[in-house]
């Protein structure tokens, strides 16, 4: 028995030693390797919640860089250029009333499968997204119908003027699918697609696009592997493979970047960026993202109580310590001037942090009839924005309001267990929330104005500010960017000290990358545009 045991231990030790020797300690020696490290781009990003890469269903932020590599859109944003560019489109015409867009496709476009990309594929992809009635279907809300008079021409007819429509076509759910291949997998663009389409599981693991890469394998919580599309119609990438390592922990990302195991880390924090100081072959990008954190009051006095009072709202606006909030959210944070983030076309930039004036805030509170302040509950959910918990910002708001006699009690409520429903129904009296843009166009921020999606969550109706409501319509209908910027400027001025929202922070993003690469920049629509990342000479 003893001898058998000894023999077993010996065999085990030998096997383990042999395996460890093959593994080569900390460094893989590349024996039996499946890919070349030099031509493999490895990107670390958080991706615990990534559920789908089906263009008709995709919604999550971190699916964007993957989708951008596997699929093409009619139009897109390239690198960090804020101007939209035609990608699959050779020429286009947007009608003056902003209700009809005619696009002519480039000739000789093809999918990774080798199938030609035609107007029928465009119509199929966008109709499918609309009819799936999924998370991203809202992006097609203004589409009435799509005509395809010939193989290269697509005509979009809109239900209402939509000056943001071309920007909407850059959204990841507007990616163009190989309709022939997709139909073989059970995809349909029929009106009942929500019940009959069965292609999602296939498209979660394989791409059917025309982008420079093809999705080879997706292992949730581990990695996404893309390989070069050998049939790509454009200029081929420097890389043969792109591997996304789904690392939720910023420390892990920092360590793997420093060790050269990943080339780009997309979710670094202030602390981890500080640790990269002096690291060899590592560079850092610190930029404000388009994610905003805001304080919201309910305009209905029955729900909002004293917070519905415009003077109280202005008192809060005056007493918040914007610089302190920036420090909590991290380096690179800015405070937007109003509802439009810094960086958007027509944005008036940032609010000066010296805006804070405690004495003026106290006076406003007295004007509102609360010279001695009052007690109020601030409900906040369990979400985070750009790495900062909303509860941390709520705590800062509580501290700041105490300076003018408003005693805040923070009530925490999980997003999925009540808060989400109440917020959607406009029943939250006073909160701190965040918003991430769906598509890269200033019109996306009009939702914060009276009568619009988020405005209504604060019970801010059109009749409360008819002048603003009229300008929204003008903005939606204006296709001339200069004129639209003028309207947006007016709207920002009108909401600088008015309305149920105070935009307290535009969160930062911190990327780290290996200096063997060039072209690593922040991209608001795609998180990062990896089509522009190349090997340094």
């Amino acid at each position: 028995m003893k001898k058998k045991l000894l023999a077993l231990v010996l065999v085990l030790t030998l096997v383990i030693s042999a395996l460890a020797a093959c593994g080569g300690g900390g460094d893989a020696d590349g024996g039996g390797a499946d890919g070349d490290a030099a031509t493999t781009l490895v990107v670390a990003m958080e991706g615990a919640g990534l559920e789908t890469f089906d263009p008709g269903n995709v919604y999550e932020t971190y699916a964007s860089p993957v989708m951008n590599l596997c699929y093409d859109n009619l139009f897109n944003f390239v690198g960090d250029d804020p101007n939209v560019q035609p990608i699959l489109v050779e020429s286009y015409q947007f009608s003056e009333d902003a209700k009809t867009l005619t696009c002519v496709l480039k000739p000789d476009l093809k999918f990774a499968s080798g199938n030609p990309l035609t107007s029928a594929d465009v119509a199929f992809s966008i109709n499918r997204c609309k009819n799936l009635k999924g998370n991203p279907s809202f992006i097609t809300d203004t589409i009435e119908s799509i005509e395809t008079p010939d193989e290269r021409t697509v005509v979009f007819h809109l239900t209402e003027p939509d000056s943001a429509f071309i920007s909407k076509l850059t959204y990841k759910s507007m990616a163009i699918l190989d309709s022939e291949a997709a139909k073989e997998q059970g995809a349909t663009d029929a009106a009942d697609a929500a019940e009959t389409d069965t292609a999602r599981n296939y498209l979660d693991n394989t791409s059917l696009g025309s982008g420079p890469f093809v999705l080879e394998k997706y292992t949730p919580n581990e990695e996404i592997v893309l390989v070069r599309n050998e049939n790509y119609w454009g200029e081929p990438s420097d890389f043969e493979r792109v591997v996304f390592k789904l690392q939720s922990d910023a420390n892990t990302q920092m360590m793997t970047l420093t060790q050269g195991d990943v080339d780009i880390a997309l979710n670094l924090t202030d602390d981890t960026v500080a640790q990269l100081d002096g690291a060899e072959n590592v560079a850092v990008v610190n930029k404000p993202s388009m994610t905003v954190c805001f304080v919201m009051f309910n305009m209905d006095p029955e729900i909002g109580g004293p917070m519905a009072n415009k003077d109280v709202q202005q008192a809060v606006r005056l007493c918040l310590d914007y610089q302190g909030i920036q420090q909590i959210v991290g380096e690179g944070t800015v405070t937007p001037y109003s509802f439009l983030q810094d960086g958007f076309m027509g944005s008036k930039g940032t609010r000066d942090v010296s805006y804070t004036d405690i004495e003026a805030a106290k006076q406003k509170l007295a004007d509102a009839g609360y010279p001695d302040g009052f007690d109020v509950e601030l409900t906040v959910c369990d979400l985070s924005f750009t790495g900062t918990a909303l509860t941390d910002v709520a705590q800062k708001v509580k501290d700041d309001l105490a300076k003018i006699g408003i005693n805040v009690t923070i009530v925490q409520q999980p997003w999925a267990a009540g808060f989400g429903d109440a917020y959607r129904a406009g029943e939250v009296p006073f909160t701190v929330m965040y918003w991430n843009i769906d598509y890269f166009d200033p019109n996306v921020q009009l939702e914060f104005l009276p009568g619009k999606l988020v405005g209504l969550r604060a019970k801010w109706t059109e009749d409360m500010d008819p002048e603003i409501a009229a300008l929204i319509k003008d903005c939606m209908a204006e296709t001339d960017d200069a004129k639209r910027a003028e309207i947006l400027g007016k709207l920002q001025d009108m909401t600088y000290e008015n309305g149920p929202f105070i935009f307290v922070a535009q969160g930062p993003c911190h990327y780290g990358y290996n200096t063997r690469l060039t072209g690593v920049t922040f991209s608001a629509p795609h998180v990062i545009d990896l089509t522009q990342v190349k090997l340094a000479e």
Partner: protein
Amino acid sequence: MDRLKFIGKRLVYMVIMMFGVATLVFLLTKMIPGDPVVANLGQRAMSDPEVVAAYRAKYGLDKPLIVQYFMYMKNLLHFDLGTSIRTNKLVRAELGRCFPATIELALVSIILAAVFGILFGVISATKRNSLLDQGVRAISVTGVSIPSFWFALLMLYFFYYKHHIFPGPGRLSNIYKAPNTVTGLYVIDALIEGNAAKAGDAFMHLLLPSIVLAAFTMGLITRTARSNILDVMSTDYIRTARAKGLSQNSLIMKHALGNALIPVLTVIGMGLGNLLGGMVLVETIFNWPGVGQFAYASVKANDFPAIIGVALLIALNYLVINTIVDILYGVIDPRVRYS
């Protein structure tokens, strides 16, 4: 015969337990406040009643609770765990994907924990109150009390970031593709593929998280082994054996260890059950796609078919392990009777 009867009884017990667990977890997920629609739909989509209605209909969430329950149970009878609301994939497939990663990690962890735990227990008991004993006890207390996420970061920092002795997070280095799935255990699958370098790489990736996870169980095993060996060493039959002139090594290996191992086996079984349930924080830090991360994401999304699936899997783990441990009792100590 007794043993077969015992296993048969356990199987019946297992089926009843599984239905009990499924019912309990189903009711719990429905009782706690939380709406899968809010958890899974984006802010835009959840404001569109048409989208919300389509979503509820797709996953049967628009049906009365009792109908949902019977539908679920009917499917369960056909070994169908349903479709995940979050990922739209079969829960069975999802568990089949992430469970092998957990098994691989749990097995290496439990082997490390058992080997070193018993070894330390023996050393500690035989050198009672010596400096060595104190050292081993300090290690075991540290193993039990150190927070695993912190220990994980620490290990990664020293052995990967600072000294690069072990590879970084993940199951394989970037130059390797995942081996073709046969067992789902990368080391084995890579060996089946005939790629020893890939198997070695997968094995090296296993070591650091395994050590982190082994620390807790090893601490428990060391303490249990030590106290049981000490108990056994003070029994009459050991005294008699010693009086007959047996050496200390022979006493421990031939006479004491067997009896002292029975409670240790229970601890190993519990430890393995615990590890097979998945470890969210360690899996997150080591980028390990196991059951823990899947369970966490499912709970956050209030994805009840997935939550029940994970609960059933964990319950099954414990039931199977307990049955195996009970059988092993009889192997180690023939006096144990099955009843």
